[in-house]
């Protein structure tokens, strides 16, 4: 039969490990790991998480699965004028990248004889055999030593390096006997083959070790020298260990049966490689293994001592630091010994111009040694020449040669040395020179760019530790109201206008001194120059990283920008907001203390609308009240110039009328500010400024508000008996219940007046065809006092709305009268300004928005309401039932659809006045009121008989998706009318156990549970593990999935790649190794599955995932181990 080829060039079916691998489709694979199949005809390697270096570190530790949200504000944090500060982070503190390198044992292109670094090519040497097919069986022993020389930067810049300590052997320093070598004293069976000598009860290896420091020898032999390990980061101060006798891996074929022939990958160590006492030798690790496995095992056996590990990659071995130290490492030969004449790394190739663009002593950063060109190993292979000073490989007869003055290349060059030993080669018999070495490495074209490709044994190196640097450039001229705070590790440094001079230089210098002299002065070093403040960690690497934020804390307004915010609540209940506008975290203590207890176990839920962030603790811990964070910048309050509220605030979410807005009616109260209940207007003396009336700043003291309602005989349509009320009106259109009821009493004001305790209010009797005159007077705080926080009303509040009720309705219906807008004056029921604010001409501290002028007769100081509007009721205008008992609730879940907030799993004060938790109940806000949750009338119960709790709530396509543990309910709320909302469908076994098992996707919602992964895009619930192709079938094996998925798994959606990620665990400590970072990936582009190993947040706990406006998927992480962006170790 002729040869045939079966070709596979379509892969978009993804992974199918459910069906028999014989029966899966041709475009499917049984298993996919660390690859994407999101395009037809391509398999690409998978992305991974990496630190977002555009954002500085935040303070504290995350709550796994919770605590991260994003929202936008129309306000930034940058002041509009005065002293400005631009913050950047020129350098992020990193531990660098784990030093790593791949030693490829594949046949080297430059070695035409098929030699490799394991197979000493010297076997085909001087006899001049033209065929170069010398019998490898003559060689029964290979000695392999891999040593690493540590180099550390001489300063924080990471430019210059110097050797640190003695070379570190990768083999055999441990206590385990598995890989000890031939010199163990207990080994007395005779001589090793091919020339090893037995001296002093030990076997001496015959390679060139003459440069070892005899002075360090413990027994006078050069193979038994000692060195001191690193201790506490200090090289040479640890325990003494031997170099010589057990630091080389000896690969022996004692029975002289197997040959070191062919590719080392095919060296299999079977029983022929056993030794009589299982020491000294590489032999099968349990069962027959190839040589690379044995070397990897030997290195890993020693990892606790060397600090280096190995893994097999393709045909090579990747050696890497267990923990990135930030140091550089070269793989050893003798020149790197600290007793060597060459003292700095700059001299390694000094004068040879092998490294381009380098000058002595400079530019030799760790990256120069990278096999890859950048820290992430994603850039191009380093075009700087790699010094092949890598592995000392010695055949037992030893043929180390190197160019003069380049002993560093000794050993490493063994593997191509046959060029000089091959009589057919033009270089036969020559002494190697740099030129000849380069000619062989670089090829005929001499292009040094090809060096790396040719030399797969090139040095792999990490990048050094870098100290974090923060920089602030001040500009402008300080003015009154300017203040900036710099927060370093929670220590605040405040500078306000007047603390120093007004120039940028003054401010930078002042901060410099304050920081250096402050509590973090030993952790950071501040400098300033020409208005630029630079703060640098005193410790390089992540150990020295510090949180840094700078934010304005003055009273000036901020810029109007579209500011993307990231809100992060850590496990100490500290809220931090990352502002795109100022390029950092706002860590203002007046803003970030949300006052929650038991914060480490809190389950924060956040939502935002209108630039305001809302947050609630889903655990309902005592006093953990829902909060709102918002920026305010009002107009002139009560018409007073510059009397404004400016700034960001955190406050209770509760929009109910607060007791503090009402001067105590009952005698037990203590409030002396607010609206006065005694509100009858009996005669003009109440306002005419004579005697003891209210037109007196001593009686109407600061923050007292007087409203008076006069039944006027002027013709109108007011008839019968009425009562009057007030509600709080908020900037977003929300409104409280008309809780404040005015009292109809005729009480002469007294200086000590609080309110008439126990006074019984009687209705205002308008009899027939009367009208209403309203007089208002208040004593607002001055601009300075308001800036100091004296304004008594909620900053969200924009006015007081007045209502009346009628006897004929049994006072049960509230009709709109008008509104006192804090900045716009008195507005009628249509919102039209009747009177603006004016200062009293009688008493300068008092202001009013009724009438045109003070009046001793009551003729010009009122708003005249002629008629009532029977249709303008509270329900019609505000949109919720005026008989609601409560407007606020804590919640576990929230979503916005139809301009309502829907909260679920709630705690609120019920009709009986008790705080109760209803974990299977929802409450809908009125339309456009995102902080108001009226109960009991806006309660939505779907199915309270299932004994289950609500575990998640999302909305899409006019539907609510209410998740419980066992089921998911779809509730149609498309027309936004609570009365017409209906349960559209119920989906058993489609619930979730945690809210972070649900995520928004491009056109709907996706979620995961033990039964699979699902999506809802407005039609049916789709099981993503079921193929949608013509052959409907399950793609993922459920048993395997259920081993993977747990309550601690978390789901994320990356819109830029249109893929869904399900990460194994949010808690790094709960998994062995780095399995917490394993992922299942659903590719929406192709409707297929793949998996990832250690791709998403490795070695760290993480919050929930969010998506930024540019489509970037992010999470907040914390962990004491693991590195960010580490090649091969994405974290």
């Amino acid at each position, binding site marked *: 039969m002729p040869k045939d080829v079966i070709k596979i060039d379509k892969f978009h079916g993804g992974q199918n490990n459910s069906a028999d691998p014989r029966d899966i489709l041709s475009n499917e694979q*049984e298993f996919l*790991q660390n690859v994407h199949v999101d395009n037809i005809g391509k398999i690409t390697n998978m992305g991974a998480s990496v630190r977002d270096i555009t954002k500085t570190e935040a303070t504290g530790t995350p709550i796994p699965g919770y605590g991260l949200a994003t929202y936008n504000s129309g306000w930034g944090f940058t002041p509009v004028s005065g002293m400005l500060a631009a913050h950047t982070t020129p350098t992020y503190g990193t531990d660098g990248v784990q030093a790593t390198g791949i030693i490829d044992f594949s046949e080297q292109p430059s070695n035409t004889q098929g030699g490799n670094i394991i197979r000493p090519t010297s076997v085909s040497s001087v006899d001049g055999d033209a065929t170069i097919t010398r019998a490898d069986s003559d060689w029964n022993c290979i000695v392999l030593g891999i040593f690493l020389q540590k180099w550390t930067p001489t300063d924080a810049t990471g430019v210059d390096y110097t050797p640190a300590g003695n070379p570190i052997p990768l083999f055999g320093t441990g206590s385990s006997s598995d890989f000890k070598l031939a010199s163990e004293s207990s080994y007395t069976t005779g001589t090793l083959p091919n020339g090893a000598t037995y001296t002093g009860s030990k076997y001496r290896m015959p390679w060139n070790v003459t440069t070892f420091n005899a002075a360090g020898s413990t027994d006078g032999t050069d193979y038994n020298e000692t060195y001191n390990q690193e201790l506490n980061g200090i090289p040479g101060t640890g325990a003494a260990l031997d170099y010589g006798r057990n630091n080389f891996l000896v690969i022996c074929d004692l029975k002289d049966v197997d040959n070191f022939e062919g590719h080392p990958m095919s060296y299999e160590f079977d029983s022929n490689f056993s030794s009589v006492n299982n020491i000294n030798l590489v032999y099968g690790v349990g069962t027959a293994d190839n040589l690379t496995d044995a070397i990897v095992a030997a290195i890993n056996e020693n990892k606790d001592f060397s600090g280096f590990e190995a893994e097999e990659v*393709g045909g090579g071995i990747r050696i890497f630091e267990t923990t990135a130290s930030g140091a550089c490492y070269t793989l050893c030969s003798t020149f790197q010994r600290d007793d060597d004449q060459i003292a700095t790394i700059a001299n390694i190739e000094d004068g040879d111009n092998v490294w381009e663009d380098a000058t002595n002593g400079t530019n030799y950063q760790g990256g120069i040694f990278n096999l890859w060109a950048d820290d992430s190993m994603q850039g191009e292979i380093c075009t700087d020449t790699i010094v092949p000073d890598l592995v000392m490989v010695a055949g037992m007869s030893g043929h180390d040669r190197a160019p003069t003055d380049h002993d560093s290349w000794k050993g490493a060059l063994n593997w191509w040395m046959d060029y000089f030993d091959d009589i057919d080669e033009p270089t036969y018999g020559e002494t190697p020179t740099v030129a000849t070495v380069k000619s062989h490495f670089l090829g005929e074209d001499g292009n040094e760019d090809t060096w790396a490709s040719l030399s797969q044994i090139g040095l792999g190196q990490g990048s050094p530790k870098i100290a974090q640097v923060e920089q602030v450039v001040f500009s402008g001229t300080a003015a009154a109201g300017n203040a900036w705070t710099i927060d370093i590790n929670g220590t605040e440094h405040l500078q306000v206008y007047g603390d120093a001079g007004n120039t940028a230089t003054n401010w930078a210098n002042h901060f410099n001194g304050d920081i250096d002299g402050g509590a973090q002065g030993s952790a950071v070093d501040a400098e300033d120059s020409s208005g630029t403040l630079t703060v640098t960690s005193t410790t390089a690497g992540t150990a020295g990283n510090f949180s840094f934020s700078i934010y304005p804390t003055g009273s000036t307004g901020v810029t109007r920008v579209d500011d993307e915010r990231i809100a992060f609540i850590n496990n100490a209940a500290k809220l931090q907001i990352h502002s795109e506008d100022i390029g950092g975290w706002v860590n203002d203590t007046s803003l970030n203390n949300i006052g929650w207890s038991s914060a480490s176990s809190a389950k924060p839920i956040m939502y935002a609308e209108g630039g305001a962030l809302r947050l609630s603790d889903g655990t309902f811990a005592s006093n953990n009240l829902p909060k709102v964070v918002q920026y305010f910048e009002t107009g002139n309050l009560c018409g007073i110039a510059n009397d404004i509220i400016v700034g960001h605030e955190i406050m209770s979410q509760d929009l109910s009328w607060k007791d503090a807005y009402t001067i105590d009616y009952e005698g037990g109260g203590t409030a002396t500010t607010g609206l006065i209940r005694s509100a009858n207007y009996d005669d003009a003396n109440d306002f005419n400024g004579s005697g003891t009336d209210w037109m007196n700043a001593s009686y109407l003291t600061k923050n007292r508000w007087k409203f008076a309602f006069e039944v006027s005989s002027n013709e109108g349509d007011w008839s019968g008996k009425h009562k009057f009320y007030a509600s709080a009106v908020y900037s977003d259109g929300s409104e409280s219940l008309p809780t404040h009821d005015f009292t109809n009493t005729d009480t002469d004001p007294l200086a000590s007046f609080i309110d008439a305790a126990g006074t019984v209010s009687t209705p205002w009797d308008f009899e027939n065809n009367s009208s209403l005159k309203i007089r208002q007077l208040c004593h607002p705080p001055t601009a300075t006092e308001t800036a100091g926080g004296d304004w008594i009303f909620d900053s969200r509040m924009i006015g007081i709305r007045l209502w009346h009720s009628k006897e004929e309705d049994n006072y049960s219906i509230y009709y709109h009268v008008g509104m006192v807008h804090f900045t716009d004056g008195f507005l009628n029921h249509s919102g039209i300004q009747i009177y603006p604010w004016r200062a009293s001409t009688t008493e300068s501290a008092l202001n009013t928005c009724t009438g045109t002028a003070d009046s001793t007769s009551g003729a010009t100081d009122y708003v005249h309401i002629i008629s009532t509007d029977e249709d303008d009721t509270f329900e019609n205008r505000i949109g919720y039932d005026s008989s609601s008992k409560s407007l606020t609730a804590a919640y576990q879940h929230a979503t916005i659809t139809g301009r309502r907030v829907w909260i679920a799993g709630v705690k609120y004060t019920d009709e009986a006045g008790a705080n109760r938790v209803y974990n299977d109940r929802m409450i809908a806000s009125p339309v456009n009121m995102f902080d108001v949750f009226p109960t009991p009338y806006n309660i939505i119960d779907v199915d309270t008989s299932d004994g289950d709790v609500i575990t998640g709530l999302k909305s899409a396509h006019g539907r609510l998706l209410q998740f419980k543990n066992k089921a998911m309910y779809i509730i149609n709320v498309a027309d936004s009318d609570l009365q017409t909302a209906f349960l559209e469908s119920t989906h058993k076994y489609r619930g979730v156990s945690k809210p972070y098992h649900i995520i928004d996707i491009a056109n709907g919602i996706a979620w995961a549970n033990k039964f699979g992964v699902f999506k809802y895009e407005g039609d049916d619930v789709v099981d993503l593990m079921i193929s949608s192709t013509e052959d409907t079938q399950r793609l993922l094996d459920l048993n395997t999935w259920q081993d993977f998925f747990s309550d601690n798994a978390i789901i994320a959606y990356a819109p830029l790649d249109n893929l869904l990620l399900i990460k194994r665990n949010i808690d790094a400590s709960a998994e062995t190794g780095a399995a917490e970072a394993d992922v299942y990936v659903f590719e929406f582009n192709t409707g297929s599955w793949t998996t990832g190993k250690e791709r998403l947040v490795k070695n760290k706990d993480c919050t929930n995932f969010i998506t930024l406006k540019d489509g970037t998927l992010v999470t*907040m992480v914390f962990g004491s181990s693991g590195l960010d962006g580490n090649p091969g170790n994405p974290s």
Partner: protein
Amino acid sequence: MATSRIQKWDSDNVYTSNAEIYTRMFDMGDPHAKKKINEFFITFTGTTSQAMVSLKVHYRFHNNDTWKLFGYGMTAGTGGRRLSLTPIYNSGTTFQMEQDSTDNSIVRIKDVYTIQLKLSFAANQKIEINDYAIEYRTVRSNSISEPEI
């Protein structure tokens, strides 16, 4: 002091040392016919000239067999980098290894009814696998053999 930081999903952070693909189990259209497996081909495309792939291929004949080494290779560069791997002689499975009589370096896997491949690779930059192929020869036989179960 404890600090937290933001991590993002980066589709360009693609370094991997442990990518794996288990193919389907191939019967080449006839599960009852013996085949000889001559060679494995794979085509890569690197995003840059320095993109490097180090590949190792294993095979097995049945679902739960242990994997055996087929071959390995490394390539770098952009545009249709092709690796062709011939089976490595495996002394542990000599009964299914066939060496060319004229050149012992050429090895085939014989007596194959079905075969599944595992592709393991390391890559430093974004690469694409565009296709892979198995070159085989169906052994002529006058009788139909029962496939191994």
